[in-house]
């Protein structure tokens, strides 16, 4: 976009104008591809955190929590999980990654997450 075009009132009224002008929209992608991507992202965020999760956790979530608990016990100790998690919340990748990263390092935590999510 040229600098002078920024003085047009239309540009300031519509903040998405610049994006529309330069970026091609999602029309290029197939609907099936987008749906697949959305499904994968939803599945991953479902396993990662607890935001917006259903009242009853899925089998996969239970498995992740169980594996994380075992890792937490091996690395920190049997009481660590209770000390760290907020009341009523089940352990998740989102809540446990910071402490694993702090004490084991980023590379080891990446490996650990890979193992936790193995076959899920």
């Amino acid at each position: 976009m040229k600098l002078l075009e920024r003085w047009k009132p239309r540009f300031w009224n519509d903040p998405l104008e610049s994006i529309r002008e330069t970026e091609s929209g999602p029309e290029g992608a197939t609907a099936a591809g987008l749906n697949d991507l959305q499904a994968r992202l939803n599945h991953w965020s479902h396993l990662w955190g607890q935001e917006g999760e259903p009242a009853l956790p899925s089998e996969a979530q239970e498995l992740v929590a169980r594996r994380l608990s075992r890792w937490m016990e091996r690395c920190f100790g049997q009481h660590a999980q209770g000390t760290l998690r907020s009341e009523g919340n089940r352990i998740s990748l989102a809540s446990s990654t910071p402490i694993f990263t702090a004490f084991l390092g980023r590379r080891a935590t990446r490996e650990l997450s890979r193992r936790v999510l193995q076959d899920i």
Partner: protein
Amino acid sequence: MLRLVRWIWILLALHLTLGMIAYAHFHVTGRYSLLGWYFGGLGTLFFLVMTAAEFCLAIMCRSCFDSDEPMRLAWGMIACAALARLAGTLLRAISDGHLPWGDWHRLLQPSGSLFVSLSQLGLVVGGPISMAFLAVGLGRVLAIQRRFRLIGSLTRGDQALLILVVAFSISQLAINLPLLGKHPSLGTAVLWLSDPLLSLLLIEAILVRRSVLRMGQGLVAKCWGMFVLAILITTAGDAGIWADNHNFLSASMTALSWYIWFFAAAAFASAPAYQLAAISLTREAHEH
């Protein structure tokens, strides 16, 4: 890596077995010859092996963290503390001529007046300088533990111990500070910092212990637990030296109190081995 921890303690057990034979000989004959050979030769070698192992393992731990991770600095400081202890042991061994490979000490005597002897330089490097590095490293660890609210509140026993430690440090400083007027060597003045630094380490150890108690018996908890154990043993060893200097201990008890330093060396070496065991677990273990 857990095998390494086992080896450290097996080596200590073997070393202590030989030490007990030397002690029995001293107890029966009343002569220091075998005991002197044990502490001067085997003891020095044990310290060198343990501190070298601790240094190498701490460097390996450091390399497991990226440059922007806070634990990298902590392990860097712990590695520096181990290196200082190794250099201190080496300097003292060379100075006293205990090492089996020649007597270089005659060539290496410092000519200035900063240090009374090479042995004192070894004491300074292996004592206060090493403690300062360890204090910075543990301080960093405590900051991380605090961020995760792992440090529990102090019990009355902890508070009483803290008050005792601070009072002891202040009393030692009160004794030593007036002596500054007599222009002691730099080495002597730095050695006066040993007690306050050990007190600082003890305070950190009490706080780390609280977090370890809250966590349980995991590998990371054991790593920091080993540091706590090593610092507590060092304090006990220091108390033994103080008691000996004030003639509170008999000759046999003094000789027995020297063995405590081997436990401290083994505990210091075990700490990074536990940390590495925790890290390598992520590569070895399989999920079921």
